């Protein structure tokens, strides 16, 4: 905050360095960024991304996880689901973008700002595009060098083609155990990723990081509770601003310890990652 003299968030215009298609409607954008920005990136943090060529439709920027970064670039993986993501996903090399970020508090890994927990090894659970968030714990060299405590990656998607980023992840973490599962059985078992999680939780002493669609996060929460195991969920509530002023993204969470109350938290600044037991869906 400017108050303390230290700039934590950046607002800048930049360029697409590369747009690679991962599937018919999922792309991987590599984007140029200032070094200061990249130093503040951390697993689970995100940015608000806007097309700089467009007029006022779409109007708002869109939130995407920073799934990888280096000295002066970062990457996002975008699934084109509506007008905003489609317009961004179709931009080519050289196109201009506006970026705010890095935003939010990420997963409690060693080098992320809020060190909440870093003892146990981590079960990573990704559902669909949740992989973009989970990948931010696995791909960046910065993270790679400091923590290597992931135990397994459990990755579910509708079908085999939608399991993206696996090659990259294998390259960065050759020894990581990866289990996939699909709705239609086209890769790994047929079923939901929470089934894989149940198996992993048979052994205690781990912490779970999960990102995916809300129904999946709900059942991850249930499973964790069942096994009385610790975990963190990354939420994707709708956002207008990304920096705590619109109150559009709030999530009901449990109130002060023991009070039985609930309170509302801004997913953009207090999250997007929350302790699993605190979220009230």
């Amino acid at each position: 905050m400017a108050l303390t003299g230290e700039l934590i968030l950046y607002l800048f215009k930049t360029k697409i360095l590369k747009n690679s298609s991962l599937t018919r409607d999922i792309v991987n954008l590599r984007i140029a960024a200032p070094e200061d920005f990249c130093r503040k990136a951390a697993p689970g943090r995100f940015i608000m991304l806007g097309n700089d060529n467009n007029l006022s439709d779409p109007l708002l920027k869109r939130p995407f996880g920073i799934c990888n970064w280096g000295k002066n670039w970062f990457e996002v993986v975008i699934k084109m689901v509506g007008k905003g993501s489609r317009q961004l996903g179709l931009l080519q090399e050289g196109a201009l973008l506006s970026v705010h970020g890095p935003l939010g508090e990420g997963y409690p890994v060693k080098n992320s700002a809020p060190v909440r927990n870093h003892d146990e090894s981590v079960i990573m659970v990704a559902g669909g595009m949740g992989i973009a968030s989970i990948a931010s714990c696995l791909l960046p060299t910065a993270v790679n060098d400091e923590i290597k405590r992931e135990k397994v990656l459990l990755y579910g998607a509708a079908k085999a083609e939608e399991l993206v980023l696996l090659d990259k992840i294998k390259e960065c973490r050759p020894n990581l155990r990866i289990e996939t599962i699909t709705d239609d059985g086209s890769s790994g078992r047929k079923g939901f990723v929470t089934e894989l999680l149940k198996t992993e939780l048979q052994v205690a002493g781990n912490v779970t990081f999960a990102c995916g669609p809300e129904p999946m996060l709900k059942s991850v929460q249930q499973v964790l509770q069942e096994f009385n195991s610790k975990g963190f969920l990354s939420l994707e509530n709708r956002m207008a601003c990304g920096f705590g002023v619109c109150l559009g993204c709030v999530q009901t969470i449990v109130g002060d310890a023991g009070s039985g109350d609930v309170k509302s938290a801004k997913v953009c600044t207090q999250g997007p990652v929350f302790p699993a037991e605190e979220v009230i869906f």
Partner: protein
Amino acid sequence: MVDLNVEIAPGVVLKNPVLTASGTFGYGREYADYLNIAELGAIITKGLSLKPKVGNPGVRITETACGMLNAIGLENIGIDSFITDELPVLQKLKAEVIVNIFGNNQDDYAAIAARLDQVEGVRALEINISCPNVKAGGIQFGTDPDAAASLVAAVRKATSLPLITKLSPNVTDIVKIAKAVEDVGSDSVSLINTLMGMAVDLDKKQPMLGNVTGGLSGPAIKPVALRMVYQVAQAVSIPVIGIGGITSAQDALEFLLAGATAVEIGTANFVNPAVGAEIVTGIRDYLELRNYEKVTDFIGSLQ
């Protein structure tokens, strides 16, 4: 150097006519990373009530063509937290502060106005009589001239602070309401608040917003805002503050031309948190290039 000073209420001279709209600028300090908030004409806080308020459940925002709908439900930290936790920060940042207030009834409004009366660092109050998201409060006051006048009169009695009444566009004749509050001592009026709208989720066959309806803001509403500002500026003799869909210096200048003494920037802050400072610069450059000595010569100069 062109003189950008404007007097938005008797004695309230701001260094330039660019303010930030309530609910789109938090309590102000959230933006301190992006711009020097002391360079803005003033910042207007999120709407504050006597007690903290939780807001609406479910989806609260959705984008529409060149605009957005919100149904935040006036969530806020309450006036006491504001005074102890936020206001000192704003004073340290040297921001000019206008507090946006609302209540569920006339007494609430009067009480919060009285509470703020002697508080240092508050330049004026903006009375939100127009939020479409509070069923019990706002809307009735904002759509009936008599109710609006009686509310503003009550607030007027409770405080010596300058009063800006913020008007709802969801009315047949906004000029009538503006005149009614002028008559009972509102020092200026600001307009427009959001237009009441709705979006539906075709897949789920449900309203998009948890609250069913919400307030429309952004460039989509600019023509309606400009029309109302023009009409009201012709009809009242107190200053008019223009709000609605302003995203650039050009937009802001259009409102000034149509008779606004100052403008408030809302939704555009979400898209570009530095937009307020950019608009101040843009207005200055425009006027300098055309050899204006002061912005007040430009205000209301539409032919």
